[in-house]
């Protein structure tokens, strides 16, 4: 599975959207992540795989959690890591994304991990000819967060199928419920694409104000009732409620939201015994999830963080050093959309 790096003849490839991944692409990444996860169990958590390669974490939005995860992943593969935060940088002085990209290109970045507040910014970066390196979307606006979806799928497969037993397998027939602010959630968008590609059945649960107009184009069900969906769920993914949106009339009060869409012990008891509770973090305890649920053995929030490093190692490895067929190019996606 793991290929020797150093093939400089490869064409640049990117990970922009979970929708770009085929079932086989996704399973390859999950399987590769299983191998990467074993590195974390070693006394020396490091592989020489990406030695000499430069990975830039280009973060226009604050996200310590995701940045550290990518940084740890790149360092465990022995890549050189440059962290570029927009705050206090030339970007805050008005430098454009394009000029920032040209600078990184001049510095020889092999991969750019980009977090940006604007949907589509990573896609522009990958397709505008500003840089030659691989682009990894670490979250763009309300569009996508593909590595989060991959680590979620990885977590579900480990919990419901097993680490070793899951190798080569997808999530056929598993029922995943995603609850909360779907409208503003890049995590939800990526998960709907990826989980359905892997064969899972996805149901979104949210108040109607937090369901995007146009959701009928998505390959999933939509429900306004959490209680109705819970008994048939194998995994329940709680989305963070963004408190800054509280005043935008999406729901009347925090208390009402919590009552109708929060997950507490009573609701968790309606789930099948094997079902897990997921959360991408950071959690609003007492809002979308109670401490009782968050601290229970069924909640995978902490595992998800650990699994995130394995997934990001797998993605960086496959983009920069591994299989040619693992991830599609953004250019291929452009062709499909013509």
């Amino acid at each position: 599975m793991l290929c020797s790096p150093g093939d400089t003849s490869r064409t640049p490839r990117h990970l922009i959207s979970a929708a770009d991944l085929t079932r086989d692409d996704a399973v390859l990444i999950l399987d590769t992540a299983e191998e990467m996860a074993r590195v974390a169990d070693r006394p020396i958590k490091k592989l020489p795989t990406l030695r000499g390669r430069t990975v830039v974490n280009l973060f226009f939005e604050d996200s310590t959690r995701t940045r550290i995860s990518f940084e740890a992943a790149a360092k465990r593969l022995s890549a050189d890591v440059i962290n570029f935060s927009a705050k206090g940088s030339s970007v805050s002085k008005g430098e454009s994304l394009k000029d920032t990209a040209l600078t990184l290109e001049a510095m020889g970045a092999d991969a750019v991990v980009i977090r940006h507040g604007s949907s589509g910014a990573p896609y522009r970066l990958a397709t505008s000819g500003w840089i030659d390196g691989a682009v990894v979307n670490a979250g763009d606006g309300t569009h996508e967060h593909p590595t989060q979806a991959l680590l979620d799928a990885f977590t579900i497969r480990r919990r419901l199928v097993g680490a070793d037993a899951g190798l080569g397998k997808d999530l056929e027939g598993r029922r995943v419920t995603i609850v909360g602010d779907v409208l503003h959630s890049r995590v939800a968008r990526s998960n709907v694409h990826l989980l359905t590609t892997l064969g899972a059945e996805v149901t979104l649960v949210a108040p109607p104000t937090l369901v995007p107009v146009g959701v009928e184009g998505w390959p999933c069900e939509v429900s306004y009732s959490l209680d109705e969906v819970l008994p048939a769920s194998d995994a329940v993914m709680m989305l963070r409620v963004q408190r800054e949106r509280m005043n935008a009339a999406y729901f009347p009060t925090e208390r009402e939201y919590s009552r109708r869409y929060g997950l507490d012990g009573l609701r968790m008891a309606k789930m099948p015994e094997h079902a897990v509770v997921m959360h991408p973090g950071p959690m609003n305890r007492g809002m979308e999830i109670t401490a009782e649920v968050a601290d229970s053995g069924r909640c995978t929030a902490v595992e998800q963080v650990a699994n995130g490093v394995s997934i990001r190692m797998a993605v960086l490895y496959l983009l920069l050093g591994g299989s040619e067929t693992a991830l599609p190019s953004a250019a291929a996606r452009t062709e499909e959309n013509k």
Partner: protein
Amino acid sequence: MSKILIRGAKILGGEPADVLIDGETIARVSTGIEAGDATVIEAEGRVLLPGLVDLHTHLREPGREDSETVLTGTRAAAAGGFTAVHAMANTFPVADTAGVVEQVWRLGRESGYCDVQPVGAVTVGLEGKQLAELGAMHDSAAGVKVFSDDGKCVDDAVIMRRALEYVKAFDGVVAQHAQEPRLTEGAQMNEGVVSAELGLGGWPAVAEESIIARDVLLAAHVGSRVHICHLSTAGSVEIVRWAKSKGWNVTAEVTPHHLLLTDELVRSYDPVYKVNPPLRTEADVMALREALADGTIDCVATDHAPHPHEDKDCEWAAAAMGMVGLETALSVVQHTMVDTGLIDWAGVADRMSVRPAAIGRLGGHGRPVSAGEPANLTLVDPSYRGAVDPAGFASRSRNTPYKGRELPGRVTHTFLRGRATVVDGKLA
């Protein structure tokens, strides 16, 4: 001024005839006119139209001369077959005083390529709070008849009512940019299946339709003229159709790009497709075409919105809204309306010259191609097919969505009061 004989052109797409221009006017329209000392243009197979009139152009001067100037914009207009354009008021400073509108008007006269009729702002600074001195702008040398805060919606119902009432004193019209501001906060593209997928803020059709519904009612209530800028949704069409069925004095325009392009193109995240109002769905496009054909929508207006390269060569959210349109408008209309059989060339003359001139009260434009009329004329080769090459644009900006796209039709000649501003497809 010398004489010009246009020989054998199909007038408004009808029977071929010869047209003799003498000085600033059309001297004769007949068959078999002798050339005498006239310069002859052999125009067999071409279509002769009254000079095109645009109700909605952004010339950017004063203030954003890096995007466009009155000179470059009027050269682009002439290249596109226009003999008159209305210059929108969102300049820097805003065209909300007699001084600024006179400046724009004079720059237009000096350009010599196209008549420039300034549009006055409805409110001071386009801020929607206090009426600008509408009367002073009308009484100025520019003689403003059309008022608009375009780029922004006059969303305060009382201000809109007062503006509609006030301009009645001098037969003015308020051209509304219909966009309910609260419903479009953070909006980036048409709200629907594509916006949901792309994670771009949705711009709901109802944000446009609710303002149009309010304004046609207000115009009816005070007995004034209202013009709706750049309709983009099927629902907007239905409201205008209903208002017209009531006999109310409502007119409307559609841009060429809303007759052709859909929100599916935004999947590319290419800001060249970022425009206000946003590109809508295929169903909306079809409704707009039908409405233009049946006269519900009165005219085509370009909403020519030039931007420098750097304002579009960036991520979607950071990009400016708008696209240039003067030089491709006629080709897009031929492609979407004429070649599809929805209207004929007489219809093009009506929607791109006669009606916009009437709405703007431009006496010398949109006239019949007849003896004694001002020689404002556009000669078109409808058989031409070619890819759009923005490198050849006269506009200072290149933000066109049609780069490399094959479109029909080509303006071979434009005449402004008898003087050729375009000859054989090139600016004179």
